[in-house]
């Protein structure tokens, strides 16, 4: 199991996760910096992601779409605020319309990632924050998470077997 700790703060609407990977820092960074790798883990199996624009520079934009089981498409845009390869990345993640423009009343979350070399591997600290409960609820209602929990517990079954 790569996850070392998860702290879900219901008051501040944040999830902070620490994961330790048995891989060098450059390889972990590539999971973020290489769009072909990024799209293999960003979306849940039921909503695979395809990344289009991928500009990891301050002020840069990353656009993606997630395709659901009914062929439904959900668009997202990251606005990169901080980037320092191979250790830090900070961006906002917003829902977008077909023109890849963030939708005004849709939720925006802020994601902060820090990578550090640790023992022979890499530690990733991820902090995700929503601005308001309303945002959280809207995000939940988009349905792009359907099957997520199932996928996770299926994985556990496999790992336990």
């Amino acid at each position, binding site marked *: *199991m*790569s*996850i070392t700790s*998860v702290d*879900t703060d*219901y*008051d501040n*609407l944040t*999830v902070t*996760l620490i*994961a330790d*990977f*048995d*891989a060098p820092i450059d*390889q*972990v960074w590539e*999971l973020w910096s290489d769009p072909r*790798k990024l799209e*293999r*883990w*960003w979306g*849940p199996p039921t909503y695979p992601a395809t990344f289009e624009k991928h500009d990891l520079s301050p002020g840069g934009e990353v656009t993606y779409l997630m395709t659901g089981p009914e062929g439904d498409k959900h668009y997202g845009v990251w606005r990169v605020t901080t980037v320092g390869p191979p250790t830090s990345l900070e961006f906002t993640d917003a829902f977008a319309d077909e023109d890849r423009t963030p939708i005004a009343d849709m939720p925006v979350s802020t994601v902060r990632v820090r990578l550090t070399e640790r023992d022979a591997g890499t530690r*990733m600290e*991820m902090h*995700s924050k*929503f601005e308001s*409960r309303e945002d*959280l*609820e809207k*995000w*939940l209602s988009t349905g792009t*998470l359907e099957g*997520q*929990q199932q*996928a*996770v*517990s299926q*994985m*556990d079954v496999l790992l336990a077997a």
Partner: protein
Amino acid sequence: MVVDEVPTEVVDEVFRALADPTRRDILRRCVAGEPSVSRLAQAYPMSFAAVQKHVAVLERAGLVTKERRGREQLVRTDAGAVGRARHALDELEAAWRGRVDRMSDLLAEGTERAKSSTTSGAG
């Protein structure tokens, strides 16, 4: 790791919190308004600290939240909203757990490939 819809501990906390008549009364007052802890303390024949403890139990169960406003601590509840926010955050947590699992798989794949290319000499 098992991701339950609502963890048993949370359910236990809620029932424990609601088992006490003072706490049920505090909750009712919070539904009606947003009393401060000190105003709640005046409503019951018990110490400020005792009331504060009751509020803390409700808070742990996710039934109320405290918000500091100036020198006062306001206690508010929106049990439905609290529940939904918790659910959404649990989903967010589950989403990231899934992502980390997939990242881990991808990294393992890379390591396997590197290993096989060094041992067999073929890429």
